[in-house]
């Protein structure tokens, strides 16, 4: 590249040409020798080197002979072998690896011998045995016999870094992959090297190790260098990248061997990022999940929730056979034909009346937000064709009509919009109603990758730890007031200027549905600044359901139910005469109406009543017929008349659409006879005399493909709602702020105590001024609403006055269930319990 190169053309990459083992290779300038060697298929043993971490040169295993041209251009060899993982390639360099140089081979053998001196011979009990880089490379590039005859260094083992991550220090080869990951990628520098020389080791802050006689800190000494206790949402990645068995996870410890396991590629069902995972299973049981390498989405990292929360699928309350409520009022196991007949009868009565009841009130569908795109499509098609209603809504969370208009006009059927790469390259990012670390772990990692090159602004009540790690600027806003906050980003404010840069991104989360005018203002801001807009929901199924039209006023592809042309297009594609014309009710309206006895039948899939601020149990109780499609026996089943078992994600195939709009298809990992929701609905529709055509994933893809995206005329208009002003003042009536922490008591994290142990304790956050006005007693507050109360310890936080923040579903803080209100509502807060 020359300085006159045209900026508009693709940037030419400056390359260098070097010789490795007599093979010439041309690589971009700045490439490490070890990477250059990989390109021509030459394997150099290594431990500390990782393509996504900065070079460290810690293990010295990758020593090679290097000769490079000096100033006069004479190629002169370095006097000693060099670490190929820290040295960049240069023009005319001659590299000889262990394959062609005796001295490199000898050097590598020497390093290996040194590493093995203190490494215990406990491979038979070590989890890494069989997939261990140290084991493999000791065989390939180590000496055949040991000369070491002394006693090996031993440590107490294992050291529990957290309830999930265990450290066997004697196995450690001090490559520092884990500490580098923690610092560079996750930003949780909870472990570091301690001591020197032979006693050097990885550990958390521990005064015993550091010999701080007489200098012990007050309190528990399990804190890291930044003074925080070890808790990271990404700690599982250190286990995966550990090249020896030093870091292991409590949930997989001693459970299996690699040769027992069958590996299946999959997509995580835990958030809307669609992280690629690898599921390892044995005899139909999942033993562990690992991050898969997908450079455009999650790179090689996943959150601990993606990695460890899989036990929920196979707990003892798993349903494998249909249940039908008998004459005695109890659920009994039934055959499929029997259960389908009972379900069909119940739904038919709700639709057509039973002869005596002259005015049937119809049925509604609540699929929940965790379904695949295919399942969402089947649910909405079932509602529209079989139940002849638009009452289908996946948004069993805070939702609004404004949000639906936003989704229909700007999200559904728009294909790939902002991508992870765009996030990484964005010069400025504005977050609203979205906490990247808690509500989209992989998004957080991608943003953090650009730390220092990117300005992050966040519209939130306080700077959360995740936002702090992104070095974000807080635009302090009480929940509900996000619309006004967007409007305030104008003129020459810092944020407005930053967002005007090329490639800036505005991220809006699903919580904005609780703030009137927020989506309207976000669209206006995007238009004003030219920034790109991305909607990042929390749950994995949301975007797919939006695409599939599982919303009360949206048909597949972003078509509006109220547009006749859109309805006709869909009706024609489905071979139906007409579709119901009236826009359906939202999830919370469905629940309210059902509770009031205005709905005769409910079809419920994957909804946890305790996640809803609306009283779903009352609705279920008041509804004549309840059909539940579920994996595990839930609270819904207690009220259901018919329960049909469906497959968990590992036992079915399908597609999650991640927030980018990227289709993340996955195949069945474990083959069982469990059926996907869409197949069950297809059979049930047949029982009711309707051909739904959702029996197979391929059928549905074909239908969705032929439907395509809506035209502009078929879409709902962009929302136009006035932004609400929230008047938050310190006092006893405070505005409630809340979101789900990544690790909490969500239904998909059941049965994994080791993961639960890494979650954060529930606290209420108040500003100093607000806390003084409330008047704390013993550092505790009681937060109450009309329906219930929460008692939580208080942490004084630098945050907006007049707001109290609590985690949404952490131990002791089930906001939706106990308070029955959404964030943004007023709650009464008083000191003490």
């Amino acid at each position, binding site marked *: 590249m020359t300085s006159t190169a045209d900026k508009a053309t693709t940037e030419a990459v400056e390359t260098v040409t070097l010789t490795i083992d007599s093979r010439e290779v041309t690589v971009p300038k700045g490439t490490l020798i070890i990477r250059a060697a990989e390109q021509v298929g030459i394997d150099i043993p290594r431990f500390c080197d990782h393509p996504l971490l900065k070079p460290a040169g810690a293990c010295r295993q990758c020593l090679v002979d290097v000769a490079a041209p000096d100033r006069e251009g004479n190629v002169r060899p370095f006097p000693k072998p060099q670490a190929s993982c820290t040295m960049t390639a240069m023009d005319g360099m001659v590299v000889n690896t262990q394959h062609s140089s005796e001295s490199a081979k000898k050097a590598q053998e020497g390093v290996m011998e040194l590493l093995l001196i203190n490494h215990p011979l406990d491979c038979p*009990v070590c989890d890494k045995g*069989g997939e261990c880089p140290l084991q493999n490379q000791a065989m390939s590039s180590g000496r055949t016999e040991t000369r070491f005859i002394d006693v090996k260094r031993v440590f107490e*083992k294992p050291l529990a870094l957290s309830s999930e991550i265990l450290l066997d220090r004697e196995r450690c080869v001090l490559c520092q992959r884990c500490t580098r990951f923690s610092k560079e990628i996750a930003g949780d520098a909870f472990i570091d090297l301690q001591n020197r020389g032979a006693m050097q080791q990885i550990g958390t802050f521990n005064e015993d190790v550091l010999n701080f006689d007489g200098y012990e800190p007050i309190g528990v000494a399990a804190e890291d260098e930044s003074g925080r206790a070890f808790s990271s949402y990404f700690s599982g990645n250190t286990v995966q990248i550990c090249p020896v068995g030093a870091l292991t996870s409590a949930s997989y410890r*001693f459970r299996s061997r690699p040769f027992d396991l069958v590996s299946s590629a999959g997509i995580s069902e835990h958030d809307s990022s669609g992280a690629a995972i690898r599921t390892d299973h044995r005899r139909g049981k999942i033993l562990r999940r690992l991050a898969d390498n997908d450079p455009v989405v999650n790179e090689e990292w996943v959150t601990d929730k993606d990695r460890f929360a899989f036990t929920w699928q196979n707990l003892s309350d798993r349903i494998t056979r249909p249940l039908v409520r008998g004459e005695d009022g109890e659920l009994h196991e039934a055959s499929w034909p029997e259960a389908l007949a009972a379900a069909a009868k119940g739904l038919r009565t709700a639709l057509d009346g039973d002869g005596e009841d002259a005015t049937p009130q119809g049925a509604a569908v609540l699929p929940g937000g965790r379904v695949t795109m295919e399942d969402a499509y089947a649910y909405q098609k079932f509602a529209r064709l079989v139940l002849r209603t638009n009452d289908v809504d996946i948004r069993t969370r805070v939702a609004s009509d404004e949000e639906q208009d936003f989704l229909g006009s700007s999200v559904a059927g728009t294909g790939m919009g902002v991508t992870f790469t765009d996030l990484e390259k964005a010069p400025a990012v504005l977050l609203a109603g979205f906490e990247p670390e808690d509500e989209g772990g992989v998004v957080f990692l991608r943003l953090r990758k650009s730390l220092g090159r990117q300005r992050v602004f966040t519209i939130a009540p306080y700077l959360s730890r995740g936002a702090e790690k992104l070095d974000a600027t807080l635009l302090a806003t009480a929940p509900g007031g996000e619309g006004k906050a967007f409007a305030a980003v104008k003129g020459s404010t810092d944020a407005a200027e930053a967002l005007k840069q090329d490639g800036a991104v505005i991220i809006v989360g699903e919580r904005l549905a609780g703030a009137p005018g927020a989506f309207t203002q976000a669209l206006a801001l995007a238009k004003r600044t030219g920034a790109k807009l991305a909607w990042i929901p929390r749950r994995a199924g949301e975007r797919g359901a939006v695409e599939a039209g599982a919303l009360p006023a949206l048909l597949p592809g972003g078509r509006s139910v109220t547009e006749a042309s859109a309805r006709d297009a869909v009706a024609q594609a489905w071979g139906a005469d007409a579709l119901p014309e009236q826009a359906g009710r939202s999830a919370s309206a469905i629940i309210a109406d059902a509770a009031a006895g205005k709905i005769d039948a409910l079809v419920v899939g994957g909804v946890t009543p305790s996640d809803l601020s609306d009283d779903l149990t009352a609705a279920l109780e008041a509804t004549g017929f309840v059909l539940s499609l579920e994996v595990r026996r839930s609270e819904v089943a207690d009220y259901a008349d018919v329960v049909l078992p469906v497959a968990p994600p590992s036992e079915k195939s399908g597609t999650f659409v991640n927030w980018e709009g990227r289709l993340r298809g996955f195949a069945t990992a474990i083959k069982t006879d469990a059926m996907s929701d869409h197949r069950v609905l297809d059979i049930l529709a047949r029982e009711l005399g309707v051909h739904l055509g959702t029996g197979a994933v391929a059928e549905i893809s074909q239908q969705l493909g032929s439907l395509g995206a809506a035209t502009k005329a078929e879409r709902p208009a962009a929302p136009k709602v006035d932004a609400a002003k929230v008047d938050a003042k310190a006092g006893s009536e405070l505005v409630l702020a809340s979101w789900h922490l990544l690790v909490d008591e969500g239904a998909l994290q059941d049965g994994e105590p080791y993961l639960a142990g890494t979650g954060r304790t529930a606290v209420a956050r108040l500003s100093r001024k607000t806390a003084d006005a409330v008047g704390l007693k013993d550092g505790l507050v009681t937060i109450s609403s009309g329906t219930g109360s929460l008692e939580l310890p208080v942490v004084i936080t630098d945050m907006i006055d007049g707001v109290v923040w609590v985690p949404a579903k952490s131990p002791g803080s089930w906001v939706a269930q106990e308070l029955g209100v959404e964030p943004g509502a007023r709650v009464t807060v008083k000191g003490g319990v």
Partner: protein
Amino acid sequence: MTESDDVWKVNREREGQAERFVSNLPEPGPVGKVFAPVAGFGVTIRNFFKPTVTEQYPEKRDTAMPRYHGRHQLNRYEDGLEKCIGCELCAWACPADAIYVEADSNTPDAQYSPGERYGRVYQINYLRCIFCGLCIEACPTRALTMTNDFELAGPTREGLIYEKQDLLAPLEDGMLAAPHPMVPGTKDDDYYKGDVTQVVDEQVEWVREHRPEEPTLPENRKAEAARG
């Protein structure tokens, strides 16, 4: 007439044409000629007076050679803890895929083997096992050895999948059934080196407290012996 009949016919004709068989053995004498019809019994009669080699199995059971590859056994240390650590190296080595192991963590409440890891599930499928002994070579703790037991037949397939309890070595006198803690002050290495030679009082006390009914407790052994 079919072709095969032709062949038969031809063969018969050839037979008639063939020369008669003439033995080149010496002609027997007159006495030989008299006894010729019963000479074949000679071997039988001679064996009446030789020692028998027939084994009267199953009435009388003989032992196999000392290094015979028979049924496997999971051994114990002298204090009764299991030697198996559930490392699955035997399963890995097995060319017939006959061994299935699942390991688990020892806990203070349930210590089955020295150290952190023990074999929770251990199965050998004797319908698959070829008794090659590679598993024995692979075992790092000498937990798995082979006995001389060769009686491995049964009426069901399930019955021939031997579980851990079927394979564990019997508890000899002085051994205490697992789970119980390791000998206080010892590490797994001490067990591997063979430094643990007997049950100690602390272990007996622990079992007495947690499982007073345990038949391998000294007092229960005595009571059992008294009952006969």
